[in-house]
């Protein structure tokens, strides 16, 4: 098998704040192959976004990558000089974000922002960049691109702004797209359109995608594999079909059960009791243990004493849980 496009190993990103050290990402490892779509799933505050920012080298103080490695296509990105990171970001690894309108510079025209990405990703001259910007807007399904290219972000709807962000991301024909909750802030109908667009572009460009989301439906829609994060760690990693048919980690099981289902809309929504622990002074042992029904049911004491290591009960399926040791 060929080398994966991206290998994240033992990544730890901590925030050094007055209240203590917040271990937002605490030992995350995963791989992604060329053209693969991986869903990074979890509740708010579980470290999904910090993980994706760490991959792109966009961690700012008070946060810092304290340990681990991010290898992208043979290049180590952790500790790489700014010059290297600036040449990777954009042309090789592109990102889109949750708040598309806030992610566009309000005083710079859409065309110029796409132009910036083209400048760092291609050798096109000014007028060629202008033409390419119009093509890209057309490619992401924006009507009247000749006019839109001169417009400013406040003249765009949220859905259009996300299309512009996608156009910017595509400008350098990246190998990897990190999409951080790309549809969360959008209307439901627009969500579907954006997902469809992403999927179509992913297939056409054979681009790998890390899809950061809390929405399992979105993962089911377009991801090949899923990695479930809890309190700064990946607790389960498997194909999307296994995630749906045979989840192993009690947290994943809880997440799947707490999805509203159309078939029995009258029944109460199942919830996972408690909330995500604040990652300052995490509990010793498994961080999910205090909320875990399975631990109580099986009377496991090891859960609160020692953190479980990842195990592979099935091929291509990894889980961090004492139930499966």
């Amino acid at each position, binding site marked *: 098998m060929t080398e994966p496009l991206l290998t994240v190993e033992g990544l730890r990103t901590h925030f050094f704040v007055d209240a203590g050290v917040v271990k937002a990402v605490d030992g995350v490892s995963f791989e992604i192959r060329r053209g693969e779509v991986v869903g990074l799933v979890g509740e708010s505050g579980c470290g999904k976004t910090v993980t994706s*920012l760490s991959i*792109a080298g*966009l961690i700012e103080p008070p946060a810092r990558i304290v340990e681990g490695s991010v290898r992208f296509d043979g290049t180590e990105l952790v500790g790489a000089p*700014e010059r290297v990171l*600036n*040449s*990777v*970001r*954009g*042309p090789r690894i*592109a*990102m889109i*974000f949750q*708040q598309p309108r*806030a*992610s*566009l*510079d*309000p*005083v*710079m*025209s859409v065309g110029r*922002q796409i132009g*910036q*990405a083209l400048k*760092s*990703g291609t050798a096109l001259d000014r007028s060629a960049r202008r033409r390419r910007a119009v093509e890209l807007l057309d490619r992401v399904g924006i009507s009247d691109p000749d006019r839109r290219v001169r417009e*400013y972000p*406040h*003249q765009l709807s949220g859905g259009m702004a996300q299309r512009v*962000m996608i156009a*910017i*991301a595509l*400008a*350098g024909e990246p190998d990897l797209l990190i999409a951080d909750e790309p549809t969360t802030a959008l209307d439901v109908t627009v969500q579907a359109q954006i997902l469809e667009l992403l999927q179509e572009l992913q297939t056409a460009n054979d681009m790998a995608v890390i899809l950061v989301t809390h929405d399992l439906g979105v993962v089911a829609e377009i991801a090949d594999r899923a990695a479930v994060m809890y309190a700064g760690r990946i607790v389960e990693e498997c194909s999307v079909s296994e995630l749906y048919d045979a989840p192993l980690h009690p947290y994943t099981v809880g997440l799947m059960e707490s999805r509203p289902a159309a078939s029995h809309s009258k029944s109460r929504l199942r919830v996972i009791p408690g909330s995500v622990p604040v990652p300052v002074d995490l509990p010793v042992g498994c961080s999910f243990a205090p909320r875990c029904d399975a631990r109580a049911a099986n009377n496991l004491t090891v859960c609160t004493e020692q953190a479980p290591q990842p195990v592979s009960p099935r091929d291509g399926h990894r889980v961090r849980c004492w139930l499966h040791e």
Partner: protein
Amino acid sequence: MVRYTVRRLLQAVPLVFGAAVVTWILIHAAPGDPIVALAGEDGDAGYYAMMRERFGLDRPLHEQLFVYLGRLAQGDLGFSYRQNRSAVSVILDQLPATLLLMVPALAVASVIGISVGTLAAARKNSALDNTARTATLLGHAVPVFWLSQVLLLLFALRFDWFPVQGRSDARAGYEGFRALLDVGHHMVLPIAALVTVYVPPIMRVTRAAVIENLDEMYIRAARARGQSRRRVLIRHALPNAMLPIVTVIGSQIGFMFAGSVLVETVFAWPGLGRLLLSAILARDFAIITAMLLMLSVTIILMNLITDLVYSLLDPRVRHGT
């Protein structure tokens, strides 16, 4: 844009008249008699009466006010008893000298304030930032007349690097380029004093606005498409921070006369500041009211220009959202 400008100018007319009435009343409420100031005390009562009648000072105050406003409506800003010519011509004579100090001082202060503020924002809490903040705090706290005198004592009298006072060396009789150089030499110290006053607000507003914008999501998004830290600072954070910076620079222009009175007096610079001071001492009502009126017009105009610059800088203002 043109319609907007015209509407704002029309709105300014009653404001200017209001300002004129208030300054006129304030000045006439202050103690002092222009005729006594002009002719000296213990003069001939008949001469006083004649002069009063000649300038209309014998009439009741409200009548004098109406006469003043009537003339103002026709563009007549009054007549200087002291200099025996129209207030406007006196002021226009002195204006270039003041602009010669104000314009370069404000330009230098803007460049220093914006660049140091931007750098300080980029390196928040660094040694550079702390030094800049302490220095601007000092610059803000030091009274400008004291600073001017210290500069004079140190760099003109002690080290003899710069001339002490005035705009040019009358005895040297320089011509051409040499004369220009001489004026430039005289400008250094007063401009240094004014720059010290102008820089702190510009620097502090720049720093705060840039810091605020550096936290915005579009900064991260720009970094994610490969823009370097420096480019993000100059191409994204600074342009977005320009509105408050333009506001503070605009308001400085409006108030530049205040600083100019003190600095021009210390350096014996023949400008509007010194004119205002001598007019006040001489109870030269026409000059005082005309200058204060000019001041309010400048402030109103600067506000308008600031708003127009906003729409140049920010498409959201331009499109009215």
